[in-house]
């Protein structure tokens, strides 16, 4: 089947645009979940399940609205006054920014189990069918003649996970920040296009046939594979980063609207067997052992490290790698020479 359908064009054109979809007719309380782009389908399913669950438990009919855009753009929208009861974003750094503005507690990460991230993902490679360039692990990306597609870490939250995964692997493989920097610099020398977001990078790789390998979130890679199974293959490296998309209740908003109980139950429900199963169906790795065992066939086992283990914290990683003039920018001064 041809990859570009009207649907994909329309969907892609919505990248970066804020759109909201009313899931149920507004009756009683309404919850707004501000999330990032690739979770749209996940939360459509999850919201329907939660509305049913809440009705069965309390008899109340509620509505859940969702809003999607880039993770950073959503955090800024909430800071600027978007009345989101809960946020479900791509990286802890963006929730930290909301907490620093005073809208929620700076200890938000301790409020829900597992660092407040109910499902995880990791960074994998998407290659052309048959893996013509023989890419098996991070080291193969640095080989001559390989073109890599990854978005710009300065504009894309997802791309920051890609960058940190590569850095973490090189750190373990070669030891020492200098060697890791060299490896990552070698990788970015092979990137012909730094798209502004993860979905755009997927389009560049899949649709425009540019590059030999796309570095992508596992769930995004599976989505792309579903759309064009005869053209692509997923390669899972030996070691990668544990991407932990965080969730949080926005205190100021739920206290004003009186929705704290529902908001907390909503996020808690993500950890329930039903919530975990929905996440797994949408290619996010479940935290729940039983559900993980059930979906064991869908996720390749690999060694994973966390941001906190290797980089201290997201705040730290942001400061040393992605701030203006930090490691990524310096890398580019070398690359562009």
């Amino acid at each position, binding site marked *: 089947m041809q990859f570009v359908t009207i649907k994909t064009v329309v969907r892609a054109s919505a990248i*970066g645009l804020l759109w909201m979809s009313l899931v149920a007719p507004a009756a009683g309380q309404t919850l707004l979940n501000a999330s990032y782009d690739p979770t749209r389908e996940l939360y459509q399913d999850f919201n329907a399940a939660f509305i049913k669950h809440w009705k069965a438990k309390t008899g109340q009919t509620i509505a859940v609205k969702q809003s999607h855009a880039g993770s950073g753009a959503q955090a800024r929208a909430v800071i600027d006054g978007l009345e989101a009861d809960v946020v479900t974003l791509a990286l802890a750094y963006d929730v930290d920014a909301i907490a620093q503005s005073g809208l929620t507690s700076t200890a938000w990460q301790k409020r829900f189990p597992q660092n407040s991230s109910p499902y995880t993902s990791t960074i994998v490679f998407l290659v052309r069918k048959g893996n013509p360039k023989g890419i098996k692990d991070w080291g193969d990306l640095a080989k001559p003649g390989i073109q890599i597609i990854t978005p710009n870490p300065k*504009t894309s939250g997802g791309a920051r996970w890609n960058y940190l995964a590569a850095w973490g692997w090189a750190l373990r493989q070669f030891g020492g920040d200098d060697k890791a920097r060299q490896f990552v610099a070698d990788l970015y020398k092979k990137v*012909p296009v730094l*798209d*502004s977001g993860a979905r755009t990078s997927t389009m560049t790789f899949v649709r425009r046939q540019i590059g030999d390998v796309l570095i992508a979130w596992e769930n995004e890679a599976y989505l792309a594979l579903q759309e064009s199974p005869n053209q692509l293959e997923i390669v899972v490296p030996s070691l990668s980063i544990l991407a932990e998309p965080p969730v949080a209740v926005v205190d100021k908003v739920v206290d004003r609207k009186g929705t704290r109980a529902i908001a907390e139950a909503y996020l808690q429900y993500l950890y329930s067997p039903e919530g975990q199963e929905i996440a797994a169906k949408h290619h996010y790795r479940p935290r729940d052992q039983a559900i993980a065992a059930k979906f064991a066939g869908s996720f390749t086992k690999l060694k994973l490290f966390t941001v906190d283990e290797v980089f201290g914290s997201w705040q730290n990683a942001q400061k040393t790698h992605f701030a203006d003039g930090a490691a990524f920018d310096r890398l580019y001064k070398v690359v562009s020479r």
Partner: protein
Amino acid sequence: MNMRAQRRVLPGFGLTMGITVLYLSLIVLIPLATLPARTMTMSWAQFWETITDPRVVASYRLSLGASLAAASVNAVFGALVAWVLARYSFPGRRIVDALVDLPFALPTAVAGIVLTTLYAPTGWLGAPLAKYGISVAFTPLGITVALIFIGLPFVVRTLQPVIEDLDPEVEEAATSLGASRGGVLFRIILPNLFPAWLTGFALAFARAVGEYGSVVFISGNMPMRTEISPLLIVTKLEQYDYAGATAIAVVMLAISFVLLLAINGLQSWARRRVAP
């Protein structure tokens, strides 16, 4: 002579002017005034450092250069389109006329994606061009192509009514008095079109400088090479650096304002020359 003391011939000045000032303030002035206000949190040294960063300077050069190039191309070919639409009647003229407005109506992200698909090395236009070693997508040339696309209606729509209003009798009179075709073109038609033509150019240019949606898809966003200034603004926002983002915006605004002012000046000079 004191105009204010006199009673105006046309009634309603107080009301209309009041609404004009209120409207412009709400829609333009207040939002623009908050820009410099947000940069106030920076020191002068920080401000200077932000706006003179080599990467930021490279982006001004690209944004302004590509916008000028695109506006120039549109000025030439847009004028031709306007001329054809205004002066000739041919089958399908209405359709062509409607086509011109499409870049206005299309969401810019869609335009960007479509153009990138066309001009990428695998695209319908990109593939044959690649054979001659010309790459369009992910180069400054690609950015210019996107800006030409979104800027076209401005030149056509400002020139078309002016061409339609040109009195053919003047041209006929010039011809009957012995002017050559070139003479009519250069001494009658073009001087009359010049002010409107400049307006179209300025509008197309201003639109291009601020364009983000379509360009980010086709530009490739490579630091120092294909990063436009609006992208760097978004980059700063992504780090919650509102002050840094507005600093770049202030510079863009200042440059655009000076250029538009210069174009306006040129226009009123041209108008004085044409006026009898």
